[in-house]
């Protein structure tokens, strides 16, 4: 009995007695899959929303705090009266 015969014998063992497919399978799959899709869409939307809010917050903070402007010197006293 060579490899091919053995494989064919095992295949025959596996092929017998296929189970019956339940009739509500398609509806069940569509319900679950639709829920999965909706959840993914919601997650994507939430991600964009958070990203947008972060961008807006950063812009507002940068416009008010102006971190690129050199702060006034703290070490030299201001020159007055000469």
């Amino acid at each position, binding site marked *: 009995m060579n490899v091919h015969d*053995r*494989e064919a*014998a*095992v*295949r025959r*063992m*596996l*092929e*017998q*007695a*296929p*189970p*019956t*497919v*339940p009739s509500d*399978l*398609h509806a*069940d*799959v*569509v319900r*679950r*899959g*639709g829920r*999965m*899709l909706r959840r*993914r869409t919601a997650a994507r939307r939430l991600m964009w929303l958070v990203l947008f809010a972060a961008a807006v917050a950063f812009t507002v903070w940068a416009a008010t705090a102006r971190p690129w402007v050199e702060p006034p010197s703290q070490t030299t006293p201001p020159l007055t009266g000469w």
Partner: protein
Amino acid sequence: MRERQASQGARRAREFEAFVAGAAGRLLHAATLLTAEPRNANPRARRLLVQALAHTYASWDRLRGEDPYDCARQQLAVRFARSAWHQYGSFGRPRPSPDHVLARLTPQQRLIVVLRLYEGVAEEQTAALLGLPAERVRTICARSMATLLHPPRGPAPAVVEVAPS
């Protein structure tokens, strides 16, 4: 625009329904072989199949010419491997029904036998899917075939269940 979207949705639903009608029988048989449940009492296999097909439904638009059957089969295999891994050693581990064809095999051996022989997936693809070397897949497949063709004497579920990696 809205009309076009609606007609696209309808076409997609029709395509998916045709796919399920064509593929569900074979996939359910494969799932039942994986879980080694009796032919008409297979809640685990049905649950696996519904999860795999739901994933295929959710990624239907992103398949882009890829075979949906491949996607569903891959999901089925990956989900079965994961569930077998999580249930390894736990008390409520599902035991295969003793009179099933594959009852003597471990979950990993069943997975490899079903993928290689029932589904006809190439050795390299099976190895890549399971993250094993191809030689290991060949060895496990040969050993499982020997167990199936020349069953050892004694009661069937004496096999130690090893989860697939």
